[in-house]
């Protein structure tokens, strides 16, 4: 029971039971307490996940995957269910449940009085369950099942206010865009099974592929197809457009699903499949480039947005791009280092991005639902706690020295720079990406603090929707803010730069050990790189400074001199949605019109054919005369005829 696998199952089942309890509570008068099961379940799951983390830490090399449950077997293909507990999944579990707990506490206050209260918490529970399952999965069956599970929860929660057409459209958009990626994902899985001797367990699959190496192009293709899934789920270029729209959902959802956990599933997938990607450097450079393009693009679009949540959403997209940049270096440099960099950024990002979203939610809550930064300002005095915690999150995101984002961003820059310093064919590409990362870091600091100054500084300005209720949020909302702020400030410095605890622990994961053995890449020493640190400090402080100079007085939004055109471009999101509309949607509409005409033709044909059975039916209809004995008689006669046939056929 208290073996790691057993603990993992407990973590898995707790949110599920919370989901069921919340769902059933909607039938009882306890509706208003629907958030309690989720908070309790997530909290205890977080404790158990911490225990699990310690156990895995003790066991060193990792725990063997659970005993398989065979679903069915056909030929070589054995569909089995296994879960795995190693450093990677243990860290993810702890992170998900911990952040989830505080977001649930926050949501308990934020969603109070909403009419879909139990539904919200039921789906949240289901989401945490699916996310934990996704992290624990050791084969593609379970992985895909939970992958779709989190997609479903995301759909349900984005469309939570389903009466609003925009919310329903956003939910549909999110679902369809991720589906585009999932198509590639599934194809990649099938290809991998074929390459991997139809092993379904990930560890066996990777073993098999490493032992019998397939053609390079096949492997590259498989990796790219897998990456398609990650692109969809993690909102990378060109499929990132759903994530900003997904902000239609309630803010805690944005914090949990669209910032801290679900969107990182793609990063997790690539980290889990690191042994595979380490063997396909051509796929890796694509991963890095996609990450780089996304990071820069999203940061640029975030520059001039006016919707606070959208700014944060674009920032999430951009940060995910950072993680993919780091993942793309795996194989060129030591996979353990690259994956550690990405996972560490994922880890710290979960804290400060959840914090930022919750703080934005707190602002939105007290401003009566208004989220446009132009409509309020100087909230510093009105909401002191929210202001402070938002500042912590913003500093961490901007990479202010010694805060968590600073350390993890440095690791990513370091991994890119280390990739330049190898014999790979793509050193030039990696160097370009390094520059891109630097620019993005500067932009990040700028737009974060633009939002911060516009919201909290300058003359006090409160939208009339807020009425007289503009005040600090309740304690159930501020306490999670404080806890997460503490996390955003400290997790970085505690876990990595001096102790290297995080990288050592993660490096001990069996799959990473496996990956390390397969590439010629050398290890990267864990030492503090002064050059990178100082560059990033300069970039962060520069961005903050520019924002301070432009917006410290809040008030009307202004573009820096001579940059008005650029800002306009950014405000219009680079016209990406419009380009997609013209290039993809219009042709499809024409096609749909043609298809409809053709369909009408087919319909007429079908109606014509259907007259035949109608005619026959009218003819035999009187047989159904309702007399039981007539039916029995026809049955007996029918059986007699059948028996005659059988008897004369068989006994001849």
């Amino acid at each position, binding site marked *: 029971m208290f073996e790691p696998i057993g603990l993992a199952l407990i973590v898995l089942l707790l949110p599920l039971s919370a989901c069921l309890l919340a769902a059933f509570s909607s039938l009882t008068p306890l509706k208003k307490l629907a958030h309690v099961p989720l908070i309790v379940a997530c909290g205890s799951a977080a404790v158990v996940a911490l225990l699990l983390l310690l156990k895995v830490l003790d066991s060193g090399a990792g725990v063997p995957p659970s005993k398989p449950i065979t679903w069915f077997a056909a030929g070589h293909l054995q569909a089995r269910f296994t879960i795995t507990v190693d450093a990677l999944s243990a860290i993810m579990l702890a992170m998900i449940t911990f952040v989830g707990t505080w977001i649930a506490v926050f949501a308990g206050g934020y969603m109070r009085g909403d009419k879909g209260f139990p539904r919200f918490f039921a789906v949240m529970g289901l989401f945490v369950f699916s996310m934990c399952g996704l992290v624990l999965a050791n084969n593609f069956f379970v992985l895909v099942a939970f992958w779709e599970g989190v997609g479903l929860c995301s759909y349900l929660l984005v469309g939570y206010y389903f009466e609003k057409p925009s919310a329903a459209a956003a939910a549909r958009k999110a679902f369809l865009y991720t589906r585009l990626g999932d198509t590639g994902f599934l194809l990649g899985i099938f290809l991998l099974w074929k390459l991997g001797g139809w092993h379904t367990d990930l560890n066996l699959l990777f073993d098999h592929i490493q032992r019998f190496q397939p053609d390079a192009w096949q492997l590259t293709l498989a990796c790219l197809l897998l990456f398609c899934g990650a692109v969809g789920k993690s909102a990378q270029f060109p499929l990132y457009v759903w994530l900003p729209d997904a902000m239609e959902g309630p803010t805690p959802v944005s914090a949990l699903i669209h910032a801290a956990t679900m969107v990182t599933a793609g990063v997790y997938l690539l980290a889990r499949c690191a042994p595979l990607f380490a063997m396909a450097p051509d796929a890796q450079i694509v991963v890095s480039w996609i990450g780089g393009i996304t990071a820069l693009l999203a940061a640029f679009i975030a520059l001039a947005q006016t919707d606070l949540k959208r700014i944060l959403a674009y920032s999430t997209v951009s940060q995910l791009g950072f993680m993919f940049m780091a993942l793309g270096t795996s194989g060129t440099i030591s996979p353990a280092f690259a994956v550690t960099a990405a996972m560490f950024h994922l880890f710290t990002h979960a804290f400060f991005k959840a914090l930022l979203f919750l703080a934005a939610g707190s602002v939105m809550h007290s401003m009566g639902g208004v989220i446009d930064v132009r409509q309020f300002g100087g909230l510093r005095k009105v909401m002191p706690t929210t202001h402070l915690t938002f500042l912590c999150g913003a500093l961490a995101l901007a990479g202010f020295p010694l805060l968590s984002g600073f350390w993890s961003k440095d690791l990513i820059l370091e991994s890119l720079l280390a990739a330049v310093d190898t014999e790979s064919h793509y050193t030039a590409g990696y160097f370009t990406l390094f520059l891109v990362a630097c620019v993005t870091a500067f932009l990040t600091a700028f737009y974060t603090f633009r939002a911060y100054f516009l919201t909290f500084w300058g003359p006090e300005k409160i939208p009339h929707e807020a009425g007289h209720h503009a005040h600090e949020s309740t304690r159930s909302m501020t306490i999670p803010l404080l806890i997460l702020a503490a996390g955003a400030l400290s997790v970085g410095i505690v876990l990595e730069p001096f102790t290297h605890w995080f990288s050592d622990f993660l490096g001990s994961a069996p799959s990473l050990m496996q990956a390390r053995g397969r590439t010629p890449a050398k290890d990267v020493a864990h030492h503090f790189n002064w050059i990178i640190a100082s560059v990033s400090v300069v970039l962060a402080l520069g961005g903050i400074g520019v924002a301070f100079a432009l917006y410290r007085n809040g008030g009307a939004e202004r573009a820096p001199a001579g940059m008005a055109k650029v800002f306009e471009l950014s405000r219009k999101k680079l016209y990406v949605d419009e380009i997609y509309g013209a290039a993809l949607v219009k042709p499809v509409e024409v096609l749909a019109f043609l298809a409809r005409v053709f369909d009408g033709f087919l319909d007429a044909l079908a109606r014509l054919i259907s007259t035949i059975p109608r005619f026959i039916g009218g003819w035999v209809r009187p047989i159904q005369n309702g*007399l039981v*004995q*007539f039916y029995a*008689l026809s049955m*007996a*006669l029918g*059986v*007699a005829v059948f*028996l*005659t046939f059988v*008897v004369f056929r068989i*006994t001849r």
Partner: protein
Amino acid sequence: MNLFALSQTQQAGGHIALAALLGVVGFFLLLPNPRGRFVPGGIAALIASAAVLVSWLVITFGKPVPDLVGTILFVFFSAGALVFGTVLVVQKNPARGAIAFAFVVLSTCGLFLLLAAPFLMAATIIIYAGAIIVTFLFVLMLSHAEGPSDENDRSREPLYGGFAGFAFVGLILFTLHQTSLGAKPDENTLVPQSHLLLPVITPEERKSLGEIATRLEEAEKLLDPDISTNTARNDCLEAFEKVYLPIKNHLTLVVGGAHVPDGVPPPNLSELETFGTFRNGSIRDRLVKLSVKPSGDGPALFREDEQARAIVKRSTIVRETQATTYKAVQRAMGENPDRDAAKAAVRQLRDEVLLLRGASDLPASNVRNLGLVLYSEHLLAIELAGTLLLVAVIGAIAIAHRKGVAK
């Protein structure tokens, strides 16, 4: 006698079709009809149908000569079942029909007794005659109406219904005929049915087999002592051999195999199969006729029924097992002694002997065995049947409780 120039199958088919047609006519005349019925004609047709059927039975399955008592009882009970069944179908008054059904059940129970099923006989009488029919009579009493009524004085499609039912019967009988061709008595035998009286296993054979099983069990214990050293092992094997040879000879008398005359021990028991004289064994002597059929199918059985076939097959299995048992023991006690394997070989022989002994005629006193089988092999099914009964009771109460509105 041109009729007999037809092939056997055509004859049987003609008989059956004739009987079925007569049955249809009889039932058509006898079933309730608002225009009145022609009773004597119907009865005559039915009797004619029965006569044709009996003649077919006699032609197909031979004259039922021996075992006069059994035959008479069978005829009595089956005639009772069929006659009362007919009465049930053609009787206008449902209460009388219920009584006729009671007699059908009683006749069936007689057949059950003939088939060695005393417990089922008792259970059927109690449940059907005792419980079901009485409740039906109660319902009839509640719903009894005076005078002619639609439900009692009309029948639905008597001709088609009779045709469907009798087509069914005719087909089944025809199938029986076709599948029983192999079981037809040999026409060369002088007294065609006498061999059927032969028991598949005589009481003496049963006794011998029981003794052999006991002795084998004792012989198995001889393998228990310590077998760690070579000498101990040889001693053990020798002791076993001394006991096993008489057992084997005894068994050979029953099931056949190689037999060594007493007092002439062969040099080596393992070579016995080549040294001994070959015997058939009493079971095969009695049941297997050595003459070869003209069709060349190999030896025919005296009693060509399933039971005899099963017994011969089983005795062959025992013989084959005993031919290899000693070798298996010897191998197991040789290098790398494996006592469990040796004991398992002996135990297998014992089990086969017991199975052969148990495969004889089903004794009439099988109620204990029936209980054992029910509560060991079919325990879950018994539980389910009990649950089903409970659910039925609840359902019946729920249905009957609802108050309907008469229109």
